[in-house]
């Protein structure tokens, strides 16, 4: 299958610092979704990006879709302890399946 590569695998920051995770594909993506999974929890949908160069914001979270639609990023400004968790990007493959990246686990020092 066509995988999505996500980096970094782990990120530890001080509370208040920014955080960014990157998602890359070797092939063009029709769209990309982002999910957050709290420790011990389940994936929760954050956003879907569809258009080339698209930028969407949700409070302190900024999502970008690359111009070539081969990469995406999630940036969190001024992290808070509630941001702790693993952030996954996911591509849609075929008609009905999500292919998840390996995820970036974010831990925060309060």
């Amino acid at each position: 299958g066509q995988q999505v590569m996500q980096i970094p695998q782990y990120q530890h920051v001080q509370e208040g610092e920014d955080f960014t995770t990157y998602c890359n594909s070797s092939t063009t993506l029709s769209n990309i979704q982002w999910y957050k999974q709290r420790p011990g929890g389940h994936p929760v949908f954050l956003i879907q990006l569809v258009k080339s160069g698209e930028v969407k914001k949700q409070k302190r979270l900024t999502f970008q879709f690359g111009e070539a639609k081969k990469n995406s990023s999630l940036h969190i400004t001024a992290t808070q302890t509630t941001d702790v968790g693993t952030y996954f990007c996911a591509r849609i493959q075929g008609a009905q399946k999500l292919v998840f990246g390996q995820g970036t686990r974010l831990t925060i020092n309060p």
Partner: protein
Amino acid sequence: EPEVTQTPSHQVTQMGQEVILRCVPISNHLYFYWYRQILGQKVEFLVSFYNNEISEKSEIFDDQFSVERPDGSNFTLKIRSTKLEDSAMYFCASSTDRVNTEAFFGQGTRLTVV
């Protein structure tokens, strides 16, 4: 807020035994999925289900696995003869239409095969 519910939350079974994991998707959703996540790893697609039949399945979803929608509300995953490597968190998910919109995930069932 509507949610996907899964039971049980934790299942321990002996190797070779059959297990059935149960899910109640969100009521007006039409597409149903099972994913699994081995501890500390990424979420992996197993199968999608629409209109009372499997619409797509992964290479993981071999003959030991089956899914069923026995009535209008439940969606089940059966593993006929569990193996140690089946130990994982199994997530049920549903969506209103094809996966171009968000998938709503249940809380998961942690399956431990001993």
